[in-house]
C-alpha cells in the first residue's frame, strides 16, 4: 500500500540537510550539564537552610525595592522579562570541545531592567526550574538563588554602575561595560559556590574547588560576556529607553514653564 504513495524522485533525491550542524547555535532545550544549578547533596543540610534563609531575606528586600521600579500593575512586563530569561537560559554555547555552558542572564537583566527587578526575575526562573523541570535541587534552591540571582546580579550591576561614565559615553562603552559586568557576574556566582562549599561541602580540597570553579567560570564568563554585551548593544540601538543602566543619563523630554 505504502509503495503506491511513495514518489520515486523522493527516494533517489539526496536528503535535504538544512539543520546539519546546530552545535553552536542552539536556543533549544538543553539536555543537562547545567553549569551552576547545584543539585541536592553538594552542601550539607545546615548550610542549605542557612542559604535558604539568606535567599528569602534577600528576595524580600528585592521585592520591596522592585515595587518602586515596577508597581503591581506593571508586573506583566516583568513576567515577560522572566520568560525571556528562561528562554535565554536554554541557549547553550560551546566553551571547550564537549563542554558547553548556558547563559545565566543576571547581568543582562540587571543592565536592562535594573538589579531589583532583575534579581526577582532570575529567582523566579530558578524557583520554577527547580519545581517544574527538576533543574537544580530543592534543597539547593537557596544556594542557587544566592549565587545567581543575588550575588551575581548585584555584583554585576555594581560593576556596571562603576563603569557608567564609560557606558554613557558611547555604544562601544556600553558594550564593554556589559561584557565586564557579565564576566564578573559569572565569576562571582562561582565564588559564591566556593564559599558555600567551604562552609558545608566535603570531599574536595578547597584550593582544588576554587581553581576548578573559577577557571571554568572565567571561560564561561567570556561566552556570557559576549552574548550579554552584544544583546545590550542590540537593544540600545533600537530602544535605548529600555536600557535601565543608562536611562537616567538619556535626556528625557519634559515640558517646563508653559506660558499663556
Amino acid at each position, binding site marked *: 500500500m505504502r509503495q503506491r504513495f511513495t514518489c520515486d524522485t523522493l527516494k533517489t533525491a539526496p536528503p535535504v540537510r538544512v539543520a546539519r550542524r546546530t552545535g553552536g547555535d542552539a536556543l533549544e532545550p538543553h539536555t*543537562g550539564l547545567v553549569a551552576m544549578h547545584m543539585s541536592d547533596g553538594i552542601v*550539607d543540610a545546615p548550610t542549605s537552610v542557612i542559604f535558604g534563609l539568606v535567599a528569602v531575606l534577600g528576595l524580600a528586600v528585592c521585592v520591596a525595592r522592585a515595587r518602586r521600579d515596577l508597581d503591581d500593575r506593571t508586573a506583566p512586563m516583568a513576567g515577560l522579562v522572566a520568560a525571556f530569561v528562561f528562554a535565554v537560559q536554554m541557549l547553550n554555547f560551546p566553551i571547550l570541545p564537549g563542554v558547553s555552558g548556558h547563559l545565566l542572564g543576571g547581568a543582562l537583566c540587571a543592565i536592562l531592567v535594573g538589579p531589583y527587578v532583575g534579581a526577582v526575575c532570575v529567582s523566579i526562573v530558578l524557583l520554577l526550574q527547580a519545581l517544574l523541570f527538576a533543574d537544580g535541587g530543592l534543597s539547593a534552591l537557596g544556594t542557587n538563588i544566592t549565587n545567581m540571582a543575588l550575588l551575581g546580579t548585584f555584583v554585576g550591576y555594581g560593576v556596571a554602575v562603576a563603569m557608567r561614565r564609560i557606558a554613557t559615553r558611547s555604544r562601544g562603552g556600553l558594550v564593554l561595560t556589559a561584557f565586564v559586568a557579565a564576566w564578573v557576574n559569572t565569576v562571582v556566582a562561582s565564588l559564591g559556590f566556593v564559599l558555600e562549599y567551604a562552609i558545608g561541602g566535603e570531599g574536595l580540597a578547597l584550593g582544588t574547588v576554587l581553581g576548578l570553579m573559577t577557571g571554568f567560570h572565567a571561560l564561561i564568563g567570556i561566552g556570557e560576556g559576549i552574548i550579554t554585551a552584544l544583546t545590550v548593544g542590540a537593544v540600545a540601538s533600537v*530602544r535605548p529607553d529600555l536600557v535601565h543602566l543608562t536611562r537616567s543619563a538619556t535626556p528625557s523630554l519634559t515640558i517646563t514653564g508653559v506660558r499663556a
Partner: protein
Amino acid sequence: MAAGHAHPLYRAGDSVVHRLPAHVKIVVAFLVVLAVVATPREAFAVFGLQFLLLVGVWVAARIPPGWLATRALIEAPFVVLAVLLPFFAGGPRVEWWGMSLAVDGLLAGWNILVKGTLGVLVSVTLAATTPLRDLVSGLSRLRVPSMVCVIATLMLRYLEVIVAEARRMRLARISRGHDPRFAWQLGATVRSVGALFLRSYERGERVHLAMLSRGYTGTMPAFTTAPASRATWSVALVPAVAAALLAVSGYWAW
C-alpha cells in the same frame, strides 16, 4: 507546555497524590529533600529505605518507574560530573596519603550521587503530579508575595510563546545559511537574542495594556485556593516524617 496548563514533566492523573493541594505537596517535597540531605552519608541502608518510601508514593500516584527514570536522566550529566570530581581530586593523593583519603573521596562522591538522585526523583514526582496553575496558587498560599506570583504566572503563560519565537528566529537564521562553528560567528545569534528581548518586552507592554483595558487592578483573581484540612496535612506529612525519622536513625545506627 501545551496550552499553558501542562508542562513537560506533568503526568495527568486522578490519584491521591494528584488530588493533594499544591502547597501541601511543595512543603512535603522540601521536607523530604531536606531529610535526605541531612542523612549521614555512611547510612547506606537509610538511603535505600528512603528510596522505598518514594516508590510507595509512586505506587500511590500510579507513576510507572520507566517514565520516572527517563525524566530523572535530565540531571544525569551533572551527577556524573559530581561523581568524577572526587576522583580528580583524590587520584594523586592516594599515593601520598594511602587509601584512607581515597575512601573519603569515594564517600563524598557517593554522597552527592545518592542525594542528588533522590532529590531529582522527589522534584520529578512533585512536577509529575502538580499542574502549572495549581503550583503558582500553591506558592501564593505559602505567602509568596503577590508580585512574585503574578510574574511567575505570566512567565509560565508566555514561556511557550517566547520559546516558539526563539525557535522561529533560529529556523530563519539556519534557512538563510547560518551555520556557526566558532565563538566569533555568534553575531547573528546574539542579535536575535537582543531582538528576542525587545519582542518579549514589547509583548509585555501590549499584554499589560490589554489587561488594564479589561479591568486589571494589580491582583490576579485566580489565586484563591482552599486551605488544607488538618486530616489532609496529617496524611501528606507521613512521607516527610518517615524520611526525617529515617535520617535521624542514620545518626543513631552509625
